[in-house]
C-alpha cells in the first residue's frame, strides 16, 4: 500500500446522499479479474448523463471527492474502493461513511475523511464556484485545508499509523515473520500438504 501523508488536489462536489456501492460500481463488473480497470464502471449509470459532475471538463483530473452523507452503503464489495482509486481519487470527504466501505477503503489506502456536514457544504460550495480551487488533506496534522477553510478530523490512531507508514495488513503481518517461522517449525509432521502424491 502507498503511504498517505498529505495530498493536495482539485476536488469534485458530489451532492448526493446515500450513495451505495451498487451506484459506485454495478454488480456486472464483479466478473473482472483485476483490481484495475474499474474506472469506467465508477458511477456507471450516472455517467451516461452528460451533465453528471464527473463528465464536466472543469473537474477532469480531480483527486478528492467531496460527497454527501452516508457514502458507501450497501454491499461489501471491495470493488467500490478499487473503482474510486482506479479513477484517480486519493481521498473522499463526507460527514458519514458506511462502516464496511470505510474499513475497505482504509485497507486499500484510500483516505476517507469525516467532517461535519456544515464544513462539507462549505467545501462543496467552494469547489463549485471555483473548480480550480485546491483542497489539501493532511494526515500528519489531521487537517483539511482549502481557501478560507481549515478543519481538523478524527481517525483512530492505529489506522492513521498504518496509512502514514503505507502499511497494509500484509506488511504488518510480515513483521511477524519470525513468529510465523517459529510456528511453522513446530507444526506436527502429520499435518496435510497439497504437494501432489
Amino acid at each position, binding site marked *: 500500500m502507498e503511504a498517505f501523508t498529505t495530498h493536495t488536489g482539485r476536488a469534485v462536489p458530489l451532492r448526493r446522499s446515500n450513495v451505495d456501492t451498487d451506484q459506485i460500481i454495478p454488480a456486472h463488473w464483479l*466478473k*473482472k*479479474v*483485476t*483490481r*484495475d480497470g474499474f474506472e469506467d464502471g465508477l458511477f456507471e449509470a450516472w455517467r451516461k448523463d452528460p451533465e453528471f459532475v464527473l463528465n464536466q471538463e472543469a473537474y477532469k483530473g480531480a483527486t478528492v471527492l467531496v460527497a454527501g452523507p452516508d457514502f458507501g452503503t450497501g454491499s*461489501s464489495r*471491495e470493488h467500490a474502493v*478499487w473503482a474510486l482509486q482506479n479513477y484517480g481519487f486519493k481521498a473522499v470527504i463526507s460527514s458519514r461513511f458506511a462502516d464496511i466501505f470505510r474499513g*475497505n477503503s482504509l*485497507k*486499500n489506502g484510500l483516505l476517507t475523511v469525516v467532517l461535519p456536514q456544515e464544513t462539507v457544504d462549505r467545501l462543496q460550495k467552494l469547489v463549485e464556484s471555483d473548480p480550480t480551487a485546491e483542497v489539501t488533506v493532511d494526515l500528519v496534522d489531521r487537517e483539511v485545508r482549502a481557501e478560507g477553510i481549515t478543519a481538523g478530523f478524527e481517525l483512530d490512531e492505529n489506522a492513521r499509523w498504518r496509512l502514514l507508514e503505507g502499511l497494509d*495488513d*500484509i506488511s504488518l*503481518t*510480515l513483521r*511477524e515473520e519470525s*513468529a*510465523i517461522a517459529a*510456528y*511453522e517449525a513446530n*507444526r*506436527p*509432521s*502429520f*499435518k*496435510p*500438504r*497439497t*504437494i*501432489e*502424491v
Partner: protein
Amino acid sequence: MGRTLAEKVWDDHVVRRAEGEPDLLFIDLHLLHEVTSPQAFDGLRKAGRGVRRTDLTIATEDHNTPTLDIDKPIADPVSRTQLETLRKNCAEFGVRLHPLGDVEQGVVHVVGPQLGLTQPGTTVVCGDSHTSTHGAFGALAFGIGTSQVEHVLATQTLPMAPFKTMAITVEGELPQGVTAKDLILAIIAKIGTGGGQGYVIEYRGSAIEKLSMEARMTICNMSIEAGARAGMIAPDQTTFDYLQGRDHAPEDEDWDAAVAYWKTLRTDDDAVFDAEVVIDAATLSPFVTWGTNPGQGAPLSANVPDPASYEDPSERFAAEKALEYMGLTAGQPLREISVDTVFVGSCTNGRIEDLRSAAAVLEGRSVAEGVRMLIVPGSVRVSLEAVAEGLDKVFTAAGAEWRHAGCSMCLGMNPDQLAPGERSASTSNRNFEGRQGKGGRTHLVSPQVAAATAVLGHLASPADLSDADVATPAGV
C-alpha cells in the same frame, strides 16, 4: 474451565497474541477457485510477493465451468477469461491446480475432503462462504474476502477477531426418510438466517454422531445460511475411517500421532457455550423451503404460511415479498407446488451418497412429463464413482440429464440457469431471488425429495410414491 472444540482448534493455531489486537492465526489449508482469487494474485504481483506456502494451497475450477461439451472452448468470454486467469496465476506462483477436464476437478468443497486434505483440527480457508463445509471433520473452516485471500497467500496467516460459541444438540433418532438436509433446513428455520451471527456452531448429540461424513458435510455446509462464521462436528471413528487411505491422509506413525491428537478434539465436559439450542430428531420430517431465504422453510406436509401469521412486522413483510416473488398463495399445500426443473448437485448435496439416494428413488421410475432434471456430480471423482456403480444409467433411463461436475445451477454462473418464472426443486443451499437465473424460483430440498419431486412433477417425498417402497440408504 474447559474449552470447546472450536476454542481448542483456535488456540492451537495462534501465531501471535497481543493485548488489544486480533490474534494472528496460522492457516493449514487454503483452497482457491477462479472467482475470488484473481485480484489477490494481482496484489501479490504488484507488491512483488510470492505465495508463502504453495504446499498448503490448492486450486480448482468450479463456478464458471460448463457441464456440457467440456472439451470445446467455453462460450462465455468473461467466464473463459476468469478460468484462464486462474491457470496463469497458478502456473506463475506454483500453485497446484485441477482445471476443467482433470480427474480431480470439481466443486472446491467436495475436492478438499475427498483428497483427504481436510483433516480434524486444521484451519481451512477459501474465498467462498461455504468453506464451512469442512467443519464436518472438526476443522475450523471459514470463508474470507479477496483481501484476506491475498493475505493468506502472502503470509499463511490471518489476523482474526474472536468468535462466540453455540451448541446445537440433536438428540434421538432421525425418522425413516429424514436426511441431513431436512435437519439443517429445519435448524435454519428455527434459529433464523441471522441466528448464528458471530458464532461458531458445534453440532453435537446422538443424532449427529450417527451421521456419515457426507451427511455431516451437508449440515456444516449450510451453517453460513444461519449466519454463522463456521460449523463444526467433533471428529470420531466415522471421521477417521473416512480419512484413512485417502491420498493426503497421514500414514504409518504419522497416522497414529494424528489420531491421538484428533481424539483430544472434543468439547470438554465443563466447557460453556455462549448459546445452546436443543432439537429432538424424532420430531423432524422432510423439509422444504417456500420463500426466498433459506430460513423460510416448513415441513413438506405443511401449507404455504400466511404472512399475517407473523408477529414480527419485518418477517411479515419479508414473507409477503417472498410469496409474491415465488408466485405462491398463503394456505396452498406445499405438496401441490409444481416444478419445471429439478437440480441434484452442489457442495451441499453433490456427493456420492446424495447421488445414490436420488438414484434409489428414481430406479425403475420416470421423470414426469415436462420436467427437466439435471444431475451434476460435485466432482469428477464422484462422477466416476457413480458411473462405476451404474447410477448414470439409472438417471438417464429415468429421463434425467447426466452432466459434468461443477457448481452449475447452484448459482447459474455457467449456462445452467432457470428462465424467468421457472420453478426448481434444488438440492443446493440458497434460494435467493435470481440465484439460479434471473426471475427463477427455487425450493431447497434433499436429494430424495428432489427425486420424488421429479417423478411426480410437484414437491413430494419418496413416501408419496405409491408404486413401490423406497428404503432410505444407510448413512443419510
